[in-house]
């Protein structure tokens, strides 16, 4: 997982980074509600200088999905 992605998410979710693997989601992180999800998207866009379409971002179900989208946009995973 991209360490910067982990950092961004851990800061917003206020959780230990070790909890944030590819399968981390609103199912596993209680603070990850549907609106905080969009704060994560906005912070990730800012941090990596990318833009996600809304329809695409609606489909992000877990952290691994965001990682995959970043990779598709040319962001290295490590």
């Amino acid at each position, binding site marked *: 997982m991209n360490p910067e992605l982990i950092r961004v998410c851990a800061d917003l979710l206020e959780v230990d980074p070790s909890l944030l693997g590819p399968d981390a989601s609103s199912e596993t992180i*209680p603070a990850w509600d*549907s609106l*905080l999800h*969009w704060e994560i998207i906005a912070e990730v866009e800012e941090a990596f*200088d*990318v*833009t996600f379409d*809304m329809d695409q971002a609606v489909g992000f179900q877990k952290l691994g999905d965001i990682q995959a989208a970043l990779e598709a946009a040319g962001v290295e995973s490590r």
Partner: protein
Amino acid sequence: MSSRRRKPREQSRILRPPAQPTEHGLAREPLQVFVATPRRGVRRSTGVVLVSLGFANPNANPFFVRLRQQLADRFDLIAVGVDYLGTRAKESRTLTPQLLDQDALIQRALAGEPSLGTAAGLVGIGEILRVLVGQDLSREFLLVERMPAQTPKDYIDFGVIQAVDLLTALHAVREAWPKANFRRVHIVASSLGAFLAHQALRLAPRAFASVLDISGKPLLGEGYLLHGHRRKALMDNSNTRVSLDNDSPYCDTLPLSLSSIDLRNQLRPWNHPCSAVVRMVTGAEDDLVPLEHKRRQQAALDRAGAHTELRVVGVAEVDGTVVKHAGHGLGAEFYQLILALGTDLLRDSESPGPGEFEERSSLCLPVSGGHYTVHYDGPPTLAFTSDCP
């Protein structure tokens, strides 16, 4: 698809028209009206959509910022959000499971914990507390100075000022983009925001082409903000200056007796037919908005001349994507529900005739202890006249 090179995410600005003063002389800050315009520009075809959010859903949250921009671009609309709860831009978070533990929250508030909001580091809590202790949403109506003896009608008072705020925002948009198409004015709303949408529709029945009400409350006296016993506990707190009649629906415990809902009384101020298509969407298992209440609201609206549709989302319709449950729809599901259930309204519907703004009409609205008069000569203004001796 994602793009490595960033493009402008939004075409947005904030308008700050003056808020209505209250009859108590309580100062109010200017409204914050969040506006997103189509990135291809505002044209004569461009309409307006008021995005009226549910309780403690902040307009500045990135989701709602993006939602407004999506609606603006997809439907050629000026998308407008109004901070009726006084949310500030820095307050970008929303409820968390911890904050939903209202019992614990209220106990902390009653204990006078002054830094509760800061300590929690979570926004929405300030709004919740202001609501809970009647210091914001209800203070205009519930202060003991005006109504030493509350009447059982107090539940019809809520939302008048907030609804006028919505119309004020619409007026501000008209002034900023006078060449846009104001026959295409829509409301998409959820929960408390949908309650306020109906209030706005009541004040301006011909201003809107459509209302998409998702999980909207017919009235607020049904344990919407908190259960009755909690509110009573707060009202009993000597630190507050608010009192309520025990017969008020505010003080009922869930479920509220249906007999205490008088929608005909609520709709009485309507003096001409409503032009909007009112599409109400409710979950069959919504425990905040009982289906029976929604059906009664529809019947009352129909009697008042509205064109209504009621769509009940049952368990069988839950697909896990657009419709994730048959309960009370909140949060970021709003976007998918709008697309799934409101696309035809936002794309095709127009109001046929002049709106209240063109007519310069006024409307009398009875509330506890007096009545409001809304004037449309310029920005909507609200005047309270006391019927008390």
